[in-house]
């Protein structure tokens, strides 16, 4: 018997005013899987992901998590189930340092007297460990995120997901504006992510980036799913042809 998917979205519709952004899209992610979500601008990729992480509610359709029907009224609901999104600009707080970013919202505290003090020591130690796990070496966890390179930032966000045993990480255009070397690094982090047991959705319009790392690739065009393939079943050139047609 086939194992049930981690997350399944059925017949999702979304209207923005009069624009029909998503027209009955089915989308699922299995455990321990990297799914590439591909399409040109305006295909509806971001919208689908925003619904999945709780930022928007679908106008029609259902979402299932480990077989149970769920409803995400806010990002908090999605986070509670271990679903998180990293958008290009909204994943980290630039003005804060690495350790404060990693533990943002889940800061460990030590109670001394009437005050719950931030356990900065643990935050620093665990940050270094978490980053090492994905192979990211950083001088000091007190470095401000704004001083990191694009690839390092993605690394921090991914390390955070692994640390908190996120079930599903949604990466929205993670390799945009990155150098070749940095892109390589991010793909390695995603690989490590899968090894640690976290599924991910890799959203991009660049097939060359996602193909090497994905298990399955889903293609959206103008709000509809026009194709879904296991990596072995297809090639980059075929997929490009499909999108262009």
């Amino acid at each position: 018997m086939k194992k049930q998917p981690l997350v399944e979205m059925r017949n999702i519709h979304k209207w923005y005013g009069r624009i029909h952004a998503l027209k009955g899209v089915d989308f699922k992610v299995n455990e321990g899987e990297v799914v590439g979500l591909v399409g040109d601008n305006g295909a509806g990729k971001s919208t689908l992901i925003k619904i999945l992480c709780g930022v928007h509610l679908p106008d029609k359709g259902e979402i299932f998590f480990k077989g149970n029907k769920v409803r995400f009224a806010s990002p908090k609901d999605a986070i509670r189930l271990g679903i998180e999104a990293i958008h290009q600009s909204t994943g980290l707080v630039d003005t804060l340092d690495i350790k404060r970013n990693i533990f943002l919202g889940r800061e460990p505290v030590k109670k001394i007297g009437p005050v719950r003090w931030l356990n900065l020591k643990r935050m620093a130690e665990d940050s270094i460990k978490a980053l090492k796990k994905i192979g990211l070496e950083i001088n000091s966890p007190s470095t401000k995120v704004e001083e990191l390179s694009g690839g390092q930032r993605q690394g921090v966000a991914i390390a955070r997901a692994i640390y908190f045993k996120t079930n599903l990480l949604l990466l929205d255009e993670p390799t945009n504006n990155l150098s070749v070397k940095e892109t390589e690094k991010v793909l390695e982090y995603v690989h490590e992510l899968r090894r640690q047991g976290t599924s991910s959705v890799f959203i991009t319009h660049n097939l060359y980036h996602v193909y090497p790392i994905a298990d399955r690739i889903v293609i959206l065009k103008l709000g509809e799913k026009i194709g879904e393939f296991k990596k072995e079943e297809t090639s980059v050139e075929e997929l490009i042809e499909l999108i262009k047609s």
Partner: protein
Amino acid sequence: MRLRQFLGNVLVVKEISSIFMLTVTMLIFYILSPYFLSYFNLRTLLELFPELGIVVLGVTVLMISGEFDLSVGSVFALCPILIVKMLSAGVNLGIATTLALIVSLGIGALNALMVVKTGIPSFIITLATMMCWRGVVLAVTEGTPPSIPEEFSWLESHLTFWLGPIRISFIYFLIILIALWIILERTRLGNWMFATGGNPEAARARGISPAKVKLISFMITSLLAGFAGLVQTSRIGSALPSAGQGWELDAIAASVIGGTSLFGGAGSIIGAAIGAFLLRIIGNGLVIAGAPGYYFRMFVGIIIILAVIFDITLKKRASKARW
């Protein structure tokens, strides 16, 4: 190389540029006239400073959370006037004071609600509430400072009595400074305040409610502004309807001098306190140095620009030194 490392560690201290500016300014004023550091004058400086200092502390917390409050000057005037009016109407001092402080909190909450619900920038919303509450002050007093009833003297003695060379208000300021520093730098709420100011979307994505954080910040700001107004009225013996005018910009200037970013997410409450002290001593220092009054505003402007330049330059050097 060890010197480099040491410099790197010192320079990166958030408050270094404001400490530097304060030291240089005090030195210059002292060179221009030794009276500047005389016991009498230092006493005066420490006596005048806590009121602005307390307002600045609140404004800085709010700026770190990413918002502005231009209505602090009006709340500053309103709180003591409310107390005086209630006392004249026969209300008990304890109740009057508590009510007035609750009103201050309420004004902050109202500011927060309007900003969060309408999405209009706080700069504009609080510009409006600033005028609104100042109007209330003028209407209630008809422009004339109300006479202070006898019962008020309890506050006068407990808020501003002399403790050797300083008034007790300076101690209150220090207590508030320490408390806010702890909150900002060593608690979860503080982390959320920086996050809310630095990247509210990221904060929300992590389950933090920027609206709640801003509500708390606005309320802290208004409460402190009201309390500071109460301290001033206790010190000078008069509840001036014109009190606090212009303080909203002074507070922002002090914060900026202290290293707080106008865009939110970064700042230092100790730096802001230093910035507030710096602003306060300029007027005094210039008088003692014998400079004509017309230069005051020019000097304040110069110092703000220099402080920001130093801050940026030092930050760049500091990060280079560490890599």
